[in-house]
C-alpha cells in the first residue's frame, strides 16, 4: 500500500465522524470515537509538519464554518471548542473562535459553560478587547443558586479579569466571603488575591475582611488568605508585625499535627502551608530582634520535626534554613541550619546537592566559614557531569573569590564559558569574570590574558561597559607609573601577536579594543 493511501485511510475516521453526532452522557473518559479523538489520531498518523499543517487548516476551516452556523447546538459548540483549544496548543491560530468561547460560557449549561470558561482562560489575555464581554456572564453566575456555577465564575475571575471592571464584581465577591461553603469562601479569597495583584488600591478598603479570612475556621480559606498576606507583607512588613503571633501560632498547630488528616501530604502536615508561613515569618523577622524572638521556638520545632526522608520534608527544611538566615540571628538555630546545609551538600541525591549549594551561596556573606568546611565537596562539584551543578558551584565560588584563589576560580569559569552556548549564561559569566579580574588580578600579564579570553568568547554579546571600562583602565592606569607602562606595553604586544595569527575570527568588540589599544597606546 502506498504511503498516501495509508495516510488517507488513517485520516478517514476523523473525517467521517465530523458528520455523525456524538451522543451519550459525558463519561469520565472521552471515547475514541469523539471528534477530538479522531483529530488527534489523524495528526499522530502524519509524519511531516507540512501534512500536519494541511490537516489542521482543513480542520480549522470546517470548525470555522460550524461555529458560525446558526444550526450549531451548544453541545456541538462545546466539542468544537475542545478542538479549537487543541489546535491552538499545536501553535495554530483559532482567533475566530474566541467570541464563541465567551458565548458558550454565557449560554451553556454546566459542562458547556465549564469548557467555555476554560477556553476563555486559555485563549484570551488580560488586555484583550473581548474580555469585557465576559463580565456580564460572570456577574450572572456569581449570583446563581447553583454553587458549581458560582465556583466557575470565581475560578475564572482568579485567572483573568479586566481591571477596569473590578468594581462591577467586587461587592458580589466580598459577599461570598461569608458564604457557608468553604470552597466558595476560599475561591472568593483567591479572586480578591488576583484583584490585589492587578489593582491593589481597589481592595484597599477590605483589608479587615482579609483578617477575618485569616481566622477562618476552615484551613483552606486561611491558607488562601496567606497568599495575599505574603504580598502585602513583602511590600510593607512593618504594617503587619502585630500578626506575627498569629502566624507563629498557626505554624505551631500545623507542625504539631493539629490539622485534619486530610491535609497531610505523604504524612507531612500541610507542607505548602508550612512553607508559606515560613516565608512570611522570614519577612517579618528581618532585622527585627523583638519580632524574631517570637519565632525562634517554632523554627526550632520545624527543624526538628522535618526528619523524615521525603522530598517534601527537605523542601520544608530548605525553607526553614532560609528563614533562619533571614531573620535576626540566633546562634543555636544558625548552628542547626548550618548542619542542615551540610547534609544537603554532602547528599548523593543530586537535587539536594544543588539546593545545598544554593543555600551556601545565600549564607556565604553571613557565615564564610561554612563554605570552607565543605570546600572539598565544592571542588568536586566543579567537575560534576551536570552543567547546572557546575554553574551553581561557580556562582558560589564567585562570592568567595579573593586574591589567593582568583586564578583558579577564573580559570574554571573560563572553561565553563568555552563550552557554554547559551547567550544568557555567557553574558552573566563574562560580567563576573571581568569584575573578578579587575578586583583581584595578581599581575598585569594575567589580567590582559584573562580579559582577552573574555573578549574573544563574549565579545559580541557582552555588556558594552566591560570593554569600555577596560580601555579606560588602560588609559588612566593605576597609581604606579611604571606598572602602568608595563601593563600597556604588554597589552599592545599581545594584541599585535593576536592580530598576526591567520585564519582566526575575533568578535567585533574585541577587534575594536585591540585597534584602540594599539592605536592610542603604542609608541
Amino acid at each position, binding site marked *: 500500500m502506498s504511503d498516501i493511501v495509508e495516510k488517507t485511510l488513517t485520516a478517514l475516521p476523523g473525517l467521517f465522524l465530523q458528520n455523525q453526532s456524538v*451522543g*451519550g*452522557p*459525558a*463519561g*469520565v*473518559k*472521552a471515547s475514541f470515537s*469523539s471528534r*477530538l*479523538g479522531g483529530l*488527534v489520531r489523524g495528526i499522530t498518523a502524519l509524519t511531516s509538519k507540512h501534512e500536519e499543517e494541511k490537516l489542521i487548516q482543513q480542520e480549522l476551516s470546517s470548525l470555522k464554518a460550524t461555529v458560525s452556523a446558526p444550526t450549531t447546538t451548544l453541545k456541538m459548540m462545546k466539542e468544537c471548542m*475542545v478542538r479549537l*483549544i487543541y489546535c491552538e*496548543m*499545536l501553535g495554530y*491560530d483559532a482567533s475566530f473562535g474566541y467570541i464563541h468561547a465567551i458565548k458558550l460560557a454565557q449560554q451553556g*449549561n454546566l*459542562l458547556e459553560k*465549564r469548557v467555555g470558561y*476554560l477556553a476563555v482562560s*486559555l485563549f484570551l*489575555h*488580560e*488586555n484583550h478587547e473581548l474580555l469585557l464581554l465576559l463580565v456580564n456572564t460572570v456577574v450572572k453566575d456569581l449570583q446563581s443558586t447553583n454553587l458549581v456555577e458560582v*465556583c466557575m465564575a470565581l*475560578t475564572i475571575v482568579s*485567572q483573568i479579569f479586566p481591571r477596569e471592571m473590578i468594581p462591577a464584581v467586587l461587592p458580589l465577591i466580598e459577599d461570598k466571603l461569608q458564604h457557608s461553603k468553604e*470552597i466558595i469562601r*476560599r*475561591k472568593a479569597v*483567591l479572586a480578591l*488575591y488576583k484583584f490585589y495583584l492587578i489593582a491593589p488600591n481597589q481592595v484597599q478598603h477590605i483589608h479587615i475582611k482579609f483578617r477575618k479570612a485569616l481566622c477562618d475556621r476552615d*484551613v*483552606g480559606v486561611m*491558607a488562601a488568605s496567606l497568599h495575599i498576606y505574603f504580598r502585602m507583607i513583602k511590600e510593607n512588613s512593618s504594617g503587619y508585625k502585630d500578626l506575627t503571633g498569629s502566624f507563629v501560632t498557626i505554624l505551631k498547630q500545623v507542625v504539631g499535627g493539629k490539622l485534619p488528616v*486530610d*491535609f497531610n*501530604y505523604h504524612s507531612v502536615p500541610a507542607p*505548602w*502551608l508550612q*512553607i508559606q508561613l515560613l*516565608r512570611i515569618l522570614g519577612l517579618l523577622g528581618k532585622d527585627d530582634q523583638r519580632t524574631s524572638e517570637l519565632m525562634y521556638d517554632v523554627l526550632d520545632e520545624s527543624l526538628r520535626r522535618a526528619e523524615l526522608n521525603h*522530598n*517534601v520534608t*527537605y*523542601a520544608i527544611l*530548605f*525553607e526553614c534554613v532560609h528563614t533562619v538566615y533571614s531573620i535576626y540571628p540566633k546562634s543555636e538555630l544558625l548552628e542547626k541550619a548550618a548542619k542542615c546545609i551540610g547534609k544537603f551538600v554532602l547528599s548523593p541525591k*543530586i*537535587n539536594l*546537592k*544543588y*539546593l545545598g549549594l544554593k543555600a551556601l551561596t545565600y549564607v556565604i556573606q553571613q557565615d564564610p566559614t561554612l563554605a570552607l568546611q565543605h570546600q572539598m565537596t565544592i571542588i568536586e562539584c566543579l567537575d560534576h*557531569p*551536570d552543567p*547546572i*551543578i557546575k*554553574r551553581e558551584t561557580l556562582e558560589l565560588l564567585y562570592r568567595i573569590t579573593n586574591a589567593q584563589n582568583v586564578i583558579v576560580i577564573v580559570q574554571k569559569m573560563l572553561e565553563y564559558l568555552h563550552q557554554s552556548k547559551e547567550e*544568557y549564561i555567557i553574558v552573566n559569566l563574562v560580567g563576573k569574570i571581568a569584575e573578578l579580574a579587575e578586583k583581584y588580578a595578581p599581575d598585569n600579564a594575567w589580567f590582559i590574558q584573562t580579559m582577552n579570553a573574555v573578549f574573544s568568547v563574549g565579545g559580541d554579546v557582552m555588556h558594552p561597559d566591560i570593554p569600555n571600562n577596560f580601555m579606560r583602565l588602560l588609559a588612566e592606569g593605576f597609581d604606579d607609573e611604571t606598572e602602568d607602562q608595563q601593563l600597556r606595553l604588554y597589552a599592545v604586544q599581545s594584541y599585535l601577536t593576536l592580530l598576526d595569527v591567520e585564519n582566526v575570527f575575533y568578535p567585533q568588540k574585541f577587534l575594536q579594543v585591540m585597534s584602540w589599544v594599539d592605536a592610542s597606546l603604542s609608541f
Partner: protein
Amino acid sequence: MQFMLLFSRQGKLRLQKWYVPLSDKEKKKITRELVQTVLARKPKMCSFLEWRDLKIVYKRYASLYFCCAIEDQDNELITLEIIHRYVELLDKYFGSVCELDIIFNFEKAYFILDEFLLGGEVQETSKKNVLKAIEQADLLQEKTETMYHSRSFIGCKKAY
C-alpha cells in the same frame, strides 16, 4: 508560578497553562526553546534548570515531561511536589493515568489543574476536596445529560 507545560518525549505539547501575561509569539518561542533544553537533559541530572532568567523545575513521568517555571524566591523542591501532587490527582481521577488519558481528555486535566493551582498558587486543599469539586460538576452534568437525552429520545420517537 509563571507557567506549566506538559510535553511528550518527542516534544509535542500536551498541556500549557500560563499564569503570566505574554504574547502568543513569546509563548511559542519560550515553549520551543524550553522543550529542547529539557529534552536534552540526561536522566541522572538534577531536576532544576536555570534558563534565561527563570528557574525551571521539571520531572518526567513515563512518556510525559512536566515542566514548571517559578519565580526567584520560590522553593524548587516544593515545586517538584506540586508536580507530583498534580500527577497523583490525575491518577486518582483517571484511574492509573497514562499519556493517552491526558491527550484525549485534556480539558479534564485542565479542570483538575485549575482546582489545585488557582492563578499559579497552590490552594492547600486535601486531595479529596480537589477531586470532589471536579466530580460534583461531572455528576451534575451527567444528570442533566441523561434527562436531556431521555427527553430527546422521546422527541425522536414522536418525530418518526
